[in-house]
C-alpha cells in the first residue's frame, strides 16, 4: 500500500514537472497586466520602462496608460529595481521633473489593489504590474509582459 502511494506521488510530480506548472512556493514573478478588453500588445522591458518614466509610448496607435501599484512595498521595490532602475525618491523626482517640464504625465498610484484593478478595467489601454499569482487569481485581466522572475 505504501509503495503504491509513493509511486503515485512520484508519478504526479513527474507529470507536473513535465508540464512546467510547478514552481517552488517562494518563487516570485512580476508581470505587467492589462484589462482583457484592452488593445495593448506585448511590451518589451525597455518600452515598459519608458512608459513608467512618463514618456508617451504609442503601441499600435494606442497610447498606453501606466498605473502604479503601491499596495505592496516589496512589489514596488522589485518594479523600481527591475523596470525603471531607480530608487523611489529619484523615480518620484524624475516624474515630477517631467511633469513640470510638460514632457509627460505622472502615472497615478494606487495603494488599494481593488481600486487599482477597477481603474485598470475602467481606463482604456491601461497597464499595471502585479505578482503573477495575483494576476492569475484576478478575473478580467491578461498578462502582457513578464518583468521579473526570481532566480533568473
Amino acid at each position, binding site marked *: 500500500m505504501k509503495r503504491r502511494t509513493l509511486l503515485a506521488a512520484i508519478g504526479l510530480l513527474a507529470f507536473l514537472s513535465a508540464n512546467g506548472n510547478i514552481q517552488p512556493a517562494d518563487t516570485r514573478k512580476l508581470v505587467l497586466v492589462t484589462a482583457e478588453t484592452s488593445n495593448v500588445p506585448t511590451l*518589451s522591458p*525597455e518600452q515598459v520602462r519608458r512608459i513608467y518614466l512618463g514618456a508617451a509610448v504609442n503601441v499600435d496607435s494606442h497610447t498606453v496608460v501606466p498605473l502604479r501599484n503601491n499596495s505592496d512595498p516589496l512589489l514596488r*521595490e*522589485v518594479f523600481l*529595481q527591475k523596470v525603471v*532602475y531607480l530608487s523611489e525618491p*529619484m523615480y518620484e523626482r524624475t516624474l515630477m521633473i517631467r511633469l513640470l517640464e510638460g514632457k509627460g504625465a505622472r502615472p497615478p498610484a494606487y495603494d488599494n489593489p481593488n481600486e487599482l484593478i477597477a481603474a485598470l478595467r475602467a481606463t482604456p489601454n491601461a497597464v499595471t504590474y502585479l505578482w503573477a499569482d495575483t494576476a492569475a487569481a484576478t478575473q478580467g485581466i491578461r498578462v502582457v509582459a513578464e518583468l521579473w522572475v526570481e532566480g533568473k
Partner: protein
Amino acid sequence: MPRFLHSLTARLVLGVLMLGLLLGVALFGSVLYLITEDYKAQFINHVRAQSHLLVALVGQDVRSEKLDSMISDILLTGQVVDADYALETAQGGRRTFFGRPRSGEIREDFFFGEHGDNIYYIAVPIVSADGARHGALSLGFDETYVNERLAQVYRRGAYLAAAYTAVLVLIAGMLGVYIGRPLKHLRQVSRDIVKGRLKRNLSVSSNITEIADLAGDLERMRIELFRRSEEIAATAERHRAILEHAAEAILTLNEEGHIESFNVAAERIFATPKTRSSARPSAASSWRRRSAAASNRTENRVPVPGCRSRRCAATAKACRCCCPSAPFGTATTRCTLRWCRTSANA
C-alpha cells in the same frame, strides 16, 4: 542640595534640560532618520542606475572578454566587491565569477541592508540592442561605505545633541541667575520690612515686568506701612498724654492681675509712686483692695471675701463677679473678688 533643587535657577535648568532632551530626541531623531533614509535611497539609486548603464553598454557588444574587462575595472574602484555573469553564447553557456569566493547562490536585495551581508546584490539581464537576452549579470555593491557614513552621521549628531543640551543648560542657568538676582533682593527687602526697617527705600531694577511690578507693589506697601506706623505712633502718644493728664485715676492690669500702667492721678489718689506699683502682684492686690473700698464707698458695693456663700449678705442675691478695673458685673475668668450692690435698685 534639595534646597538648591527647589530654587528658581535649578528649576529652570531642569525644565529646560527636560524640554531640550524631549525636543532634541524628537528633532535629532527625525533629522537622523531622514538623513539615513536619504543615504540609503541614494545608494540604491546609484546601484540600480549603474547596473542598468553597465548592461546597456554590454548589450552593444556582448562578448565575454569585454565583460571581463569591464567587471575587473569596476572591481578596482571597490564599490563593487562581488560579481558574476552567465553568458549564453553560440559556443554554449559560461559562468564567470569575480571578487570574493562565495558558497552558494546570491540572494538579490531590494532593500538596503537586506540579508545582513553588507552587500547589495542586484541581477540584471544582458540584453543586446535587438532585444535578445544573452544572460544575466550579478553585481554585489559594498554597503559598508554607507554604513560607515551613517555611523559618522550618528556620531556627529550625538556630539551636536550634547553641545545643544550644554548650551541650553548654560542659557537656562544664566537666565535663572538673571531672574533670581532681583528676586533675592526683593526677598531681602521684604525681610527688612518684616523687621520694621521701613525707612530704607526699595530699589530693585529689573527689565522683567512681573518682577518690576512686584517691586513696585512692595515699595507702595512699604510706604503705606511706614505712614500707618507713624500714625499709630502719633495716636499712641496722644492717648498716653490723655491718660497721663486725666483727672481720674486710670490704671490697667493684665490677665494675672498685675498692674501694667497707671496715670499721675492714680499716683496721687492712691499715694503710691508709679515705680513701686508697676507690674507687681502685691501692689495689684493692694490697689484692688483700695480700689474696691473706693468703689464700695461710691457705688454701695459690698465685697464678699472669697465669695464662699456666693450670696450677698444684705440682699441675698447672687454675687456678681467684678474686676476692679472693669465695670460692675463684668465677669472675667480670673475674677477673685465678688460684689453685691446694697442700693435699692441693685
